[in-house]
């Protein structure tokens, strides 16, 4: 075989007490899409961040094109032909989209930044990917999906030899994912190398030529895609069988817990009415931007509503705020965990206990021991990977962070648990656990409202599916009638 484009061998990296990489290896050839897989915290992001110049290995060798790769500086990495789409989009809210794409290397003419050329080049890149955004608008206020698309354009504009995509699809829905996979294939056909990190195995099978699986910072296996199946990959990843992805426990569906009537918010959503019952899991499906997050944020009292009523267990909620919603028994696991879900510099214990401090008090004082015990119990229940309960959550991997958000809200023992993209960025093993957890909670009498862009998850978990399109509720499908096509058709409208 020809000399590989990238060869990493014996890569090790330690963060304080955490061995993030432990003699990991990875090989990527020209014209190949390699799927990099592994549980949350396995070290995938750390490995590719090294290629992006953000980290420097403690030990190990990286060769790019047969030459030794110079580490430790993003600019240097870019010059050596590596581009990366990060797991967490990081745009500049005060800059235009065009400048976001070209930041740090703006085209110049006569020594000055050439704004019109920059816009034109961005517009053509956008057109190429079918992105309907004005390059001249500011990035502020862009939806996560759109942010992710701009990130992709940014990486493509670099014209790199090796393109790394770290969970690029986590925030996207099917249509955009399709487009993204198309891009990956095109890059492969142009002879470039692509590293594709994802927790959605079906995508991996669609686009990858080979897979490399990591566990505990080490590479456990590498194989051409044709020689593996899902079960095999999962075994490599978690070291055991996962019997059921969607362990739906049959639950007794009881009285109405949440009832929403005629809920409207100008410009966001219109005339939304539905109910969620005790023991029931209701999914809110739809395309990105259809307004699902807005609806659940309004129910939780974050966003104001212009009209309509929200009723919890027969009591109408007025002058709605998150603390009133919590008092009424509502919990919301928000979609953006870094900004909305967690206090990144605070400890796991503090994050977990934040919502239940009232319960942990004695004589007005918060009991620190009780707080830590609570956090440890939840960490055990959700199989959190952590060093110390007092470590800041920013040191956890993305998936483990999501588990902390879940514990924080499950700790409130809500009557209605709203989850917005609960398994975004979570590995298969944990995903199954989260599903089992939601299902058990429902069986124990909790009402669950789940916003999800992951169709198998919606179909696998929901008792009932509500579909939104352009801010309106367009369809309601029972579990028995639910099919992928029906949900998609409703979500995309007549055009689809």
């Amino acid at each position, binding site marked *: 075989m020809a000399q590989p484009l990238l060869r990493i061998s014996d890569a090790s990296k330690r963060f304080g007490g955490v061995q993030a990489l432990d003699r990991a290896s990875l090989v990527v050839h020209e014209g190949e899409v390699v799927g990099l897989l592994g549980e949350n915290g396995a070290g995938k992001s750390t490995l590719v961040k090294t290629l*992006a*110049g*953000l980290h420097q290995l403690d030990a190990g060798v990286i060769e790019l094109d047969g030459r030794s790769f110079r580490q430790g*500086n*993003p*600019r*240097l*990495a*870019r010059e050596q032909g590596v581009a990366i789409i*990060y797991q967490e989009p*990081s*745009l*500049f*809210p*005060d*800059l*235009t989209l*065009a*400048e976001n794409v070209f*930041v*740090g*290397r*703006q085209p*110049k003419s006569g*020594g*000055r*930044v050439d*704004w*019109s050329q*920059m*816009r034109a080049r961005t517009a053509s890149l956008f057109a190429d990917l079918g992105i309907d*955004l*004005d*390059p*001249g*608008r*500011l990035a*502020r*206020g862009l939806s996560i999906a759109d942010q992710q698309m701009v990130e992709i354009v*940014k990486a493509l504009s670099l014209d790199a030899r090796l393109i790394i995509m770290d969970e690029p699809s986590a925030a996207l829905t099917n249509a955009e994912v399709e487009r993204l996979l198309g891009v990956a294939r095109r890059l492969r056909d142009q002879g470039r190398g692509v590293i594709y990190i994802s927790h959605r195995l079906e995508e991996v099978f669609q686009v990858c030529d080979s897979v490399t699986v990591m566990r505990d910072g080490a590479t456990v296996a590498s194989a051409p895609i044709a020689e593996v199946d899902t079960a095999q990959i999962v075994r490599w990843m978690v070291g055991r069988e996962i019997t059921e992805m969607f362990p739906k426990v049959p639950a007794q569906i009881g009285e109405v817990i949440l009832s929403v009537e005629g809920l409207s918010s100008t410009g966001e959503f219109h005339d939304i009415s539905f109910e969620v019952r005790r023991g029931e899991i209701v999914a809110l499906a739809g395309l990105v931007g259809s307004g699902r997050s807005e609806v659940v944020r309004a129910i939780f009292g974050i966003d104001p509503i212009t009209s309509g009523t929200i009723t919890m267990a027969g009591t109408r909620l007025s002058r709605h705020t998150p603390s009133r919603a919590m008092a009424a028994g509502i919990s919301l696991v928000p979609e953006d965990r870094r900004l909305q879900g967690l206090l990144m510099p605070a400890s796991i214990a503090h994050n977990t206990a934040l919502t239940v401090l009232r319960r942990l008090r004695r004589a007005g004082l918060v009991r620190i021991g009780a707080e830590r015990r609570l956090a440890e119990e939840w960490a055990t229940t959700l199989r959190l990977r952590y060093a110390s309960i007092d470590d800041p959550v920013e040191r956890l991997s993305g998936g483990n962070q999501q588990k902390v958000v879940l514990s924080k809200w499950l700790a409130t023992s809500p009557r209605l648990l709203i989850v917005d993209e609960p398994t975004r960025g979570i590995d298969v093993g944990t995903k199954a656990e989260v599903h089992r957890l939601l299902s058990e909670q429902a069986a124990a009498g909790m009402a669950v409202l789940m916003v999800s862009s992951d169709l198998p998850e919606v179909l696998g978990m929901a008792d009932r599916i509500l579909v939104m399109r352009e801010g309106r509720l367009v369809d309601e499908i029972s579990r028995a009638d639910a099919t992928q096509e029906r949900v998609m058709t409703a979500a995309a409208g007549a055009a689809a």
Partner: protein
Amino acid sequence: MSGGLSRVARLREVPVLSALIVLLLLTAILNPAFRGGEGLKAILIESALIAFLAAGQANLIIMRHIDLSVSSTAGLVSFLIGNTSMNNMGISVPQSLMIAVAVGAAVGIVNGALVAYLKLPSLVVTIGTLYLVRGIFNYLAGGVTVTADALPGWVAAIGSGSILGVPDLFVIALILCVLMTIVQTSTRWGRDLYAIGSNPPAAARVGIPVAHREFAAFVLNGIIAGLAGMLLLFRFSFADATAGLGIELYVVAACVIGGVAIAGGVGTAMGALIGAVLLQAITFALGALGVSQFWQQAVAGALLVLAIAFDRIVALRSTQRINRLAEAPV
């Protein structure tokens, strides 16, 4: 200056500029004495120093930093030049420039190194150097006062001169602000500052050498503060231990009024210059309108708060409008 960003930048400055024009017109209508142009000239002279300093400060505020030590640096330089002239029977322009740049750069390097490379918060560091430099300055100055007769002729000449009716001092500030605005809007170096202020960790990820940019901007600001010390001397032909005391907050206020938001990522030096002029115009207009001495400061403070609130509301509106326009089908 074409392109989306400068369009936004200009929009951010429109409200301040219109507030300034309205204020000047109103004053001129109500007080005939204000119409002669002398009033305007006085406003320009008084705002020159603040505007000059704001040009450097804007770079820092754009990056979510701040430098409060500028008043001490400027004061020290103005005294050192004056004192040297007093002891040596005069001083040349290059000598003065050397003192200004050397002292300014020294303070800037200390600030910059601590903030950029040790990642210390700039507010703390520069309050520290504010005291430190002021203390050294007072120690050197003691009770010595440098008076006009100890200064060479060119100091007074620049201080009192004008070009086409515009005071020299303001022309100097204007040139610096225009140059700085060009740097900010159309060089990669300048654009990097906006990126850093807009999202610091992301700036590092796209390969912007964040620490180097921060360091350079602090050194540049130090040098500008040093040169401002010369302006201070031109302006007053006098220096003692109180030179420049307390002007740092006016500089920050000028930037904020001029649309350089404390939260970083927006604004230009030109905006800060307009902010500086507006700040002075408020004071002069109140006097010209016959507001009592005791009420003037209170009313000026209230107007300052209003200006900040107004700018914020208008800025929100214009961002929304631009995004709406951008989202409209083409």
